[in-house]
């Protein structure tokens, strides 16, 4: 399954899109993609299938965003906390990641056509080496595209991101690159993984949970919890 589905929108989808586009639009939307396992249980399929279908829905959502002119999307794909899940599930998710990042590399033409810049945010050294390499290739291959931006949070938690940023600032002062008076809220913004992106205007969480679950705690302004 491709990252950006090429199929045309249906008449209803186009109609709704036109209505939505008539009003103010967010420039950056963040998604917490939750509920894959519950969905799998509901449909009586394997968890892995739930995750796979979750990815398909992501691809469809990216297509909608592209069509609506939302230029930046950030998704919470895998939390550092998720490493605590069973080995079977984590291995399954890593395999899914291998599959999808490899597929991404095959879709260079498509990414070039839409000008999609891929960024992957998180504590990447925690990931298997081969996945780190795939990610590096995807990020390098698309780094000069700038029509739209997809940020995938993988091996990510917001607390890790914030603490990492604070450590960077401390290092800067230690090294004499910064004065203590340079340390500020806006400098912290610049040290976060998301420093190249504006803050999300809207955060959407699927599945009905009403928590941020350690996602973009510093950056998120407006959130919307979609009820089941």
């Amino acid at each position, binding site marked *: 399954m491709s990252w950006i589905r090429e199929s045309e929108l249906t008449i209803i989808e186009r109609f709704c899109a036109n209505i939505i586009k008539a009003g103010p639009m967010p420039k950056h939307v963040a998604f917490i993609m939750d509920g894959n396992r519950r969905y799998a249980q509901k449909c009586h399929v394997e968890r892995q299938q739930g995750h796979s279908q979750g990815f398909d829905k992501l691809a469809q959502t990216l297509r909608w965003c592209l069509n609506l002119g939302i230029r930046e999307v950030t998704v919470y794909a895998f939390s550092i906390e998720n490493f605590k899940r069973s080995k079977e599930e984590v291995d399954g998710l890593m395999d899914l990641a291998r599959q999808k990042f490899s597929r991404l590399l095959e879709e260079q033409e498509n990414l070039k056509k839409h000008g999609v810049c891929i960024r992957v945010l998180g504590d990447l050294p925690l990931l298997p080496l081969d996945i780190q390499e795939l990610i590096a290739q995807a990020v390098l291959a698309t780094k000069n595209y700038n029509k739209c931006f997809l940020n995938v949070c993988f091996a990510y938690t917001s607390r890790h991101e914030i*603490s990492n940023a*604070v*450590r960077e600032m*401390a*290092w800067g002062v230690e090294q004499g690159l910064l004065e203590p008076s340079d340390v500020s809220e806006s400098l912290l913004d610049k040290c976060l993984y998301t420093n190249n992106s504006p803050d999300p205007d809207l955060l959407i969480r699927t599945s009905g949970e009403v928590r*941020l*679950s350690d996602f973009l705690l510093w950056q998120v302004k407006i*959130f*919307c919890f979609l009820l089941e």
Partner: protein
Amino acid sequence: RQRWRSDGRALQKLPVHMGLVVTEEEPSYADMASLVVWCMAVGISYVSVYDHNGIFKRNNARLMDEILKQQQELLGLDCSKYTMEFANQEKADQALKFELWHKALTPKILHPSLEMCMLGKTAALLLVKGLQCDDSVGREDVNFLEIPSFSTNGFPDPDLVLKFGPVDSTLGFLPWHIRLTEIM
């Protein structure tokens, strides 16, 4: 009043720390006071009150008066059973200190204190100072929860935040601590 207590007992789970976040431009002291009194009656131990303009903080005496008044009105004869400890954080240079008022039992009320800039700047400065003083402390070793501005002085992370007003945002309320907080 008795109903409040039994309501509290009837719940399977009670939040230990409840956050009350107001996004209205002109928050209502009476409404906030009655909410705080309800929290007390139902058995919630820690309550945080926050509005992003800092109105409650600046006028905390007025809020406290209103709370005491409502405590008497709503809890009546029972009101002496419920006492309150008020924790007020003051920004003082790069250290945070608390003033305790009405020293008594729980619930503790934390006023809007950890604004984002304070959180970020103070934490970073303290970390930097700490590192400058002690070369043996590696950057990786620092436990963020020990940094005063990250610590809410004994308050656990909020379990639940009730948000009031038109804005779908917590507007900078304890960004570090609401990692797992349910927001309604």
